[in-house]
């Protein structure tokens, strides 16, 4: 049972530099469903993710978790992984330290997380010399070690080749199987279909459509979403 | 790694034990005296006799007297009798004793455009230099040397100003460097001149005038004004300077066989 979900956004707006990037978004995210945030470049996917994760404060409206301690029970993976100048193991240990895990447990939990994502053999390698795909897997290991209730992923495979993408998607599935709610933004339709249960379609900062994967893909209900699926949406 | 190692060095470096010395006094004196090498000769003798180390801070006379007034030293040893006596009157120093004298000389280019070489009358020489508008480098720093120089100009009724008269605002050595580079005349103490190595075309042209004699005095900073002053150690130094032993040490100091300072303390 999730302690912090559902996450409710109530009339959330975000304005920066005079432009409204998120426009009165209201939605509730429930446990158990993998939510894909879909949209063209510039639609506001990254901003929405950051508002939900708490990295940005809304200009208007409210972001409300359902329980206590939401801060510690979520994790985020960014498009470009940011690693500290230490070993792969060291990076995971850092995250555990930040989360308040007692020192005696950190190394064991970190090693387990690395094994889970297939990086066990690279534990002592400096994180910064790992390949893009390996670093992204390391980001996921870092999140895994924290056993989050919600995992936000902001276009996690946009910079990776198909092989690395495949590995990342497998790990995301593992998170899902372990009970973590997935909230992922992507502009890859294939990835959305492979990993998602529902689609939230974002167009110019507003949610235009929300539907299950089965209902969305053959026939999106709105014109904007339909255009996107057909690949005809002009880049903003 | 870097930070830790550096921290270690810093802590060791600042450990007071590294620089603690049991008995020492701070003596404020002039750069010309220091540059002459006198202290290098007599201070080890004093330390051997009494175990007291003497730390000499060499400044211009004006600054040295000010250092004494502020209480930043224990003893002042300079060559400006009038200023010294005035400050004793004002209560900054306990007493003043004659110690020694050296003399000033007028140096200049061997070509001697003002024709002063061999003159024994310093004031007349300065008049000729002024008359020829020959380049003259002055310290211009209110030092004892500078004050002596100005007194002589005044005695000749001259107010030295003009392109020919260059005030360097610095010590004896720097002024001699300038004179050497400019082939100018200059007013120097014999001590600095004898150890000065960058003479270029310069040579001693005028000497021997009694008005060129430069009297040194030593004073103890007044403990009534500055209780922290090491009055016993400081007094020991003064006593030694004016004692036969100290006076002999001063007389024994020579550069190239030539005596620089002539002891004249009265007991």
């Amino acid at each position, binding site marked *: 049972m999730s302690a912090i979900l559902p996450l409710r956004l109530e009339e959330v707006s975000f304005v920066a530099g005079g432009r409204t990037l998120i426009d009165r978004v209201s939605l509730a995210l429930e446990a158990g469903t993998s939510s894909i945030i879909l949209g063209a470049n510039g639609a506001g996917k990254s901003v929405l993710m*950051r508002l939900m*994760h708490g*990295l940005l404060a809304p200009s208007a409206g409210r972001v409300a978790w359902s329980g206590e301690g939401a*801060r*510690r029970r979520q*994790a*985020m993976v*960014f498009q470009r*992984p*940011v690693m*500290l*100048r*230490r070993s792969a193991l060291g990076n995971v240990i*850092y995250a555990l330290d*930040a*989360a308040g895990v007692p020192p005696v447990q950190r190394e064991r939990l970190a090693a387990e997380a690395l094994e889970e994502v297939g990086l066990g053999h690279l534990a002592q390698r*400096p*994180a*910064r*010399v790992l390949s893009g795909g390996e670093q992204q897997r390391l980001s996921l290991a*870092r999140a895994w070690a924290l056993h989050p209730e919600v995992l936000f992923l902001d276009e996690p495979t946009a910079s990776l080749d198909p092989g690395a993408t495949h590995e990342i998607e497998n790990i995301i599935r593992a998170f899902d199987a372990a009970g973590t709610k997935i909230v992922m933004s992507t502009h890859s339709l294939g990835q959305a279909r492979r990993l998602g249960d529902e689609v939230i379609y974002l167009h110019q900062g507003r949610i235009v459509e929300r539907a299950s994967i089965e209902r969305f893909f053959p026939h999106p209900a709105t014109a904007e979403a339909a255009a996107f699926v057909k690949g005809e949406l002009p880049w903003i | 790694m*870097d*930070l830790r190692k*550096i*921290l270690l*060095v*810093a802590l060791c*470096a*600042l450990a*007071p034990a590294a*620089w603690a010395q049991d008995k020492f006094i*701070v003596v404020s004196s002039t*750069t010309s005296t220091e*540059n002459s090498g006198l*202290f*290098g000769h007599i201070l080890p003798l004093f330390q051997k006799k009494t175990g007291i180390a003497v*730390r*000499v*801070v*060499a*400044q211009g006379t004006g600054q040295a007297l000010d250092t004494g*007034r*502020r*209480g*930043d030293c224990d003893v002042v040893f300079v060559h400006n009798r009038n200023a010294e006596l005035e400050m004793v009157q004002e209560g900054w120093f306990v007493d003043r004793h004659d110690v020694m004298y050296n003399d000033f000389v007028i140096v200049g280019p061997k070509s001697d455009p003002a024709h002063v070489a061999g003159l024994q009358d310093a004031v007349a020489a300065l008049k000729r230099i002024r008359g020829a508008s020959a380049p003259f480098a002055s310290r211009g720093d209110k030092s004892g040397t500078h004050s002596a120089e100005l007194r002589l100009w005044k005695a000749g009724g001259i107010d030295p100003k003009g392109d020919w008269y260059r005030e360097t605002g*610095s010590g*004896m*050595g*720097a002024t*001699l*460097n300038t004179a*050497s580079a400019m082939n100018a005349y200059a007013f120097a103490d014999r001590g*600095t001149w004898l*150890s*000065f*190595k*960058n*003479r270029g075309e310069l040579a001693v042209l005028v000497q021997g005038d009694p008005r060129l004699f430069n009297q040194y005095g030593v004073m103890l900073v007044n403990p009534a004004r*500055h209780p*922290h002053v090491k009055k016993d150690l400081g007094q020991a130094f003064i006593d030694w300077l004016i004692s036969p032993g100290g006076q002999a040490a001063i007389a024994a100091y020579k550069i190239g066989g030539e005596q620089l300072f002539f002891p004249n303390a009265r007991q």
Partner: protein
Amino acid sequence: MLDTLASGLRLVATLDLRLWQVVGLSLVVSLSAVALAALLGLPLGAALAVGRFRGRQAVIVVLNALMGLPPVVVGLVIYLLLSRAGPLGELGLLFTPQAMVIAQTVLVLPIIAALARQAVEDAWREYEEQLRSLGVEGTRAALTVLWDIRFSLLTAVLAGLGRASAEVGAVMIVGGNIDGVTRVMTTTIALETSKGDLPLALGLGMVLIGIVLALNAAAQLIKEAAQRRHG
């Protein structure tokens, strides 16, 4: 001038214990000052880079300007503070190596802090979101970034060391250039120049430059080795 240089180096090569005492003191004073300035200045720079408060821009401008503090002015101010006639006279620190370390620390602190601020601010853009996502903020985040960019900070520290070992104004005034006690390389060079012993002064100058070069080379090697190890 080459003659002067040659005879200078010859003089230095034959010189005795006293020269090495002077070199040793120079290193101790400057390295201590840099260490202290780094200890204070690196966290200060990091805090300024990461913090947000009113007047922050003004503080940054002032800090950058302080990099150009004239050593002789710093020397004079510290002198007035440490003099017996001044507020801190009780400490009896004037004309000691400790006073020289204090003066040089004041001189070097703005350099290290300002350069660290710039380096941390640049890195902060990369690290900030990820650290906040992990729940790391404020002081802890600043220190994490500071430690992560430690090899780049070496440049800031070396800049400080360069300033400290090169200056003569501050140490001359607060140290008094006392033979065997507060005489360092730069003040010795000034002294020998004023005595007209230019070859010796030049020789010492070469030694000073050589030492600073060696320190910089060593730092560069450390930096490269570390970068190969840590990425």
